[in-house]
């Protein structure tokens, strides 16, 4: 893995705020089919630079639990490394889109509030990790790439 590329990727996620709303981007790491780099290795490398929590989104976890975990990570000012291993269901997709557009969560009937709103802390970011084949063949939402700013390709 090219560490310089990874550093640029992290640096841009940390620094770039889009005009006019001053929102930060969500980052995407795509593993190409021929890549030998393991997800654990990528996560460990990022962990050396920022305080980050790994969440695996697969068949064993429900959307509301993933959302809970992201909320908790934000409460600790942490970054989130979200590994996508199943097609994204509507509740999580909605919140990822909220994060991408407004850097905030908007949940109905959550934690005792009719409308729960939570801003992503200035020091937190979300990085999504997925394999290219998975994105192309399993993710049914057609604008998946549009959720993200910087994209790091693992060749």
């Amino acid at each position, binding site marked *: 893995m090219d560490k310089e590329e990874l550093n*640029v990727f992290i*640096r*841009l996620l940390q*620094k*770039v*705020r*889009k*005009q*006019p*709303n*001053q929102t930060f*981007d969500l980052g995407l790491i*795509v593993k190409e089919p021929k890549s030998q780099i393991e997800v654990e290795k990528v996560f460990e490398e990022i962990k050396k630079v920022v305080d980050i929590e790994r969440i695996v989104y697969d068949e064993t976890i*429900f959307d*509301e639990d993933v959302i809970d975990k992201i909320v908790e990570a934000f409460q600790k000012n942490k970054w989130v490394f979200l590994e996508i291993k199943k*097609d*994204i*269901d*509507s*509740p999580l*997709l*909605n919140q990822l*889109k*909220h994060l991408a*557009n*407004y850097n*905030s969560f*908007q949940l*109905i*009937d959550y934690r005792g*509030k*009719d*409308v729960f*709103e939570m801003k992503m802390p200035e020091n937190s970011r979300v990085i999504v990790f997925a394999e*290219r084949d998975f*994105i*192309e*063949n399993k*993710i*049914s*939402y*057609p*604008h*998946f*790439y*549009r959720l993200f*700013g*910087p*994209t790091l*390709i693992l060749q």
Partner: protein
Amino acid sequence: MPNPETLRFKSPEELKEEKIEKKIKERGPEGEILGGIVFEEEKAIDPETKEERTRRYIYIGNPYEERPIITKLETDASREEVEAIKREIIPMKESFEILEAMARTYKHRQPLLIEGSTAIGKTYLADKFTELLYGRGVKPLDVYCSGQTDVSELMAKWVPRVETEEEKRKWNEFVESLEAQEKISQIAQEIEQKEKLSQEQKLALIHTKLQELAKSAGLSEKTQWRFQYGAVPKAMGLIRNPDGSFSFDEQKGMGFIIHIEEVGLAEPQVINALLKLRGKRGQLAEEIQLWENGGRKVKAGPKFWVVFSTNPPEEYLARNEVDPALARGVVFKRMGELSEESLRLAADYYFTYKLSEKPKEKPEGCILDIYNYPEIGREIAKVVSIFHNELNKELKKGEKGRQQRIPLTLDDMARVADALIDTQIRNKETGLLDLNETLKKHIHFYYLDRLADEELKKTMEANLNELLEGVTGKIKFEGKILTRKEIFDTLVERASLTEDEKKKLEEEKKKEEEKKLRQAKFDVQDAIDSLLKNPKIPESVKRLLQE
């Protein structure tokens, strides 16, 4: 003199209309749009308290039109807030078309559906419209549809009160199954058909059905259930509290704005549920009945409004046309592509950093504070808008070897603009900012790195190089034909000068001009002398020349 028969006095209303229209159509010294949104305060007597109070209004109209339709709406936002929101809207023709449609339909409680490409700014403008009505930072309720969107997310559902993680897991697994989804939708359908039952009887029947569901899911039959409203009824009965939080009252809530996005991706059952929102005379329904709750009604508050949005069906694979029944029940605003002129305007706003506060101090990584040099920004904008447009055309055709599409948005430009501030490369020879190389790197990172089609990537790389450094990319600049790279170098060099160097350069420029002027005078004198010596020139003309 005007014909006295056609003279008439204008009423105060007419004069006020003219004043507002003038403000809506206001333009700056370079023809830039300054109007479109106007804030006004009016004093009025409160009919209940009989006290005078000040009301705030915004007027929205399309400043590009000769005779704009102007809509007046009451707002909670202050003058300062409205001005700040206005500054964040790029005054593109398309933006005002959308804002005008939003204002008109909001005023008449009509649901609006905007179909337009990704870059047109549907989400952003729904956001800004909400802020114009409620103040800075207030967002609409936002729901994004996809193939997985469930009716219950939008409307309502029963949720078991589970005590343990095990119970939670069982329920979640069950509810995701096809069997469960069928059973749940059957409950609402069955209740809808039992017209003769009272509300209590219907609720009792629902309770029985829910216990059956609990059993199927492996939960206790004594499980307690909680009714949870979805985003639509919530928006109908929301109350915005003074502290900015929301509460809900299904009968007396004021209502709020809900933006249902990508409605073209929703499954038919979701669309069917949304059809409940159709009311009389093309307006929104005044109430909806939720069979999930035994047919109980939720009232739409006076400020409830729905805006739907979707991308054009031809833009994406496997995308549905907007359901005809839904299309009939809304005001359908179909937008074309963002024009090249608008794209250029947007680029100009991003790269001259007009949309947000500029850094007060030079940030780390910044060699040249380009955000303080609009002349540099304007040249960058020309390059990026051309490149963006070209790539967008290619991407619309679809990439080889990719199911997912990557439509470009204005965010891509915004990213490049922001990265340019403090991620800059130095020219090793001059020590100054290498703008050409920096721009290339950022365009590469934000536009090209994500392309899967290697052939397209190479073509676009070559196009970018040609645009920046090639002969075909050359343009006229200050009287000379130069490449964009040469223009960048000139502008960067100029901007990098110290104050003393700038003064010196100014003096040299002045001297050069004076020299040219002197030379011109000599040339004129020589010409006159030669004419005076010419015997063919009449004496009368020579006298005139001497004078």
